[in-house]
């Protein structure tokens, strides 16, 4: 008759709450260990699993299954960034014209798109396409016991499945983010000049004056950080899926929720760390 038995009999609700807390805490530890192992095994990927890495790069950039029908990851990312930048440009144009300075819309696009809108939209797009896709694949492999089969064959499953996907995502994301950023600027410009009829020269002038190239580089840092976190979360939930075919679906949903939250916090803290409290911005030059 230890303390825990007495606790369970006398205060069942407290004991249950305590157990849930313990389980959550343990799961957090498991997760951390998985992430550490995945990152640590990145070396193995480049040493032993180069072929699988290339295959993942190809699959991620073009998309698989029915996603490939609508143009793959590239199309989805392009679509999402264009529509958010378009929405922000039309919002900006209308609000700025209320104070009579709609000419500054080019400046708003250069500033807000680079620092905030494109990294945030990119996070959503990457989590939805390559992230959720990885969870679905790994989850299906887990419940059809393919991962156990890999282990039996002597393949390091975390390195072969999770680390290759993280590495492939980091390789794929750089050109994808270039596309996203460029299309975001393009959408903002075409909304302002074609849809609202501002003259192209005015837009170009303010855009070029206030576009900070270093900001674009910093936003790459933000994106790489957020994609690392997104892929780690998604591979964890896929690798540890359970509960049959239905469990895979639940794992995808849970992974998307978790990775979106994690990505936004990463964006927030990396942005604050990169730009500092003053914002590192000089309007007057």
């Amino acid at each position: 008759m230890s303390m825990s038995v007495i606790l369970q009999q006398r205060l069942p609700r407290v004991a249950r709450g305590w157990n849930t807390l313990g389980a959550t805490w343990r799961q957090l530890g498991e997760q951390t260990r998985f992430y550490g192992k995945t990152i640590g095994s990145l070396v193995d990927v480049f040493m032993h699993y180069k072929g699988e890495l290339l295959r993942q790069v190809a699959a991620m950039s073009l998309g698989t299954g029915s996603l490939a029908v609508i143009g793959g990851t590239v199309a989805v990312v392009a679509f999402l960034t264009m529509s958010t930048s378009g929405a922000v440009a039309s919002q900006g144009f209308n609000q700025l014209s209320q104070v009579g300075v709609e000419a500054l819309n080019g400046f708003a696009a250069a500033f807000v798109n680079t620092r905030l809108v494109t990294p945030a939209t990119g996070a959503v797009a990457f989590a939805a396409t390559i992230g959720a896709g990885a969870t679905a694949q790994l989850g299906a492999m887990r419940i059809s016991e393919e991962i156990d089969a890999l282990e039996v064959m002597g393949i390091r499953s975390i390195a072969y499945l999770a680390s290759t996907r993280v590495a492939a995502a980091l390789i794929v994301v750089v050109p994808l983010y270039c596309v996203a950023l460029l299309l975001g600027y393009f959408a903002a410009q075409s909304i302002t000049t074609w849809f609202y009829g501002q003259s192209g020269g005015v837009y170009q002038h303010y855009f070029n004056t206030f576009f900070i190239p270093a900001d674009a580089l910093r936003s790459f840092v933000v994106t790489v950080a957020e994609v690392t976190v997104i892929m780690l979360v998604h591979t964890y939930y896929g690798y540890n899926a359970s509960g049959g075919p239905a469990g895979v679906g639940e794992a995808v949903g849970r992974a998307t929720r978790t990775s979106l939250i994690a990505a936004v916090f990463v964006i927030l803290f990396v942005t604050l760390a990169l730009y500092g409290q003053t914002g590192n911005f000089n309007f007057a030059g």
Partner: protein
Amino acid sequence: MTHGTKETPPPHRPWAETKALGFVRGLGKFSAFSLDAFLAMLRPPFAGREFLEQCWFIIRVSMMPTLLLVIPFVVLATFTFNVLLVEFGAADLSGTGTALAAVNQIGPFVTVLVVAGSGAAAMCADLGARTIRDELDALRVMGVDPMRALVAPRVLAATLVALMLSSLVTLMGLTGGFLFAVFFQHVTPGAFAASLTLITGVSDVLVSMVKATSFGLIAGLIGCYQGTHVGGGPAAVGNAVNETVVYSFTLLFIVNAVLTAVGFEVTK
């Protein structure tokens, strides 16, 4: 082929079933499904209990993500705006920036993320699990119409919850922006509150609510469509949820861009 093996002619297919038209076919099926769902909503025996349970389900799934997503987003936006405003020497107007961000853009944006990423994904996983266990066919055999019993209450629940969530998002966003501006960026609280309503008015709040309602409707329809059209195999449900997330994000972002532009023309 080269060694004289007899080539079997491909089975004859009408041109409408070619693979290239798969996307269009999916679109047509989805439209038909949506019409069916709307009809099912109007036909009398309304599954009220299921509706309430689904509302509670979606709220339970999306409450935490909402709260955890909106605060960092608004803090980011407030930070970016305030950097500008401090540079102009107009930090007192920071409430304007926060209100603009929270009501007009971040409110709908976060609602999209939560409704599509959490609500529709969870709904699709739930319905997909039932579909692959042939529960929907069992319902049909028992004379229960799954559209009326399962789909209609889910779509309505997603619509209602999206509307409520957007209000929550806006309120949480304004509070978070206020705290960040006042305690971290040293803006006067009175000036912040006074400048909140400078450009953002009732019409913006209404447009934001209309946006959220339509997001909920579309995300609910996509989630239910994908959930009820799951094929066999263990990878199918996972892929269906993945597709739900991708399609609903894509569609809702476009709808957001269009409604933003339309909203300005209407409220002018």
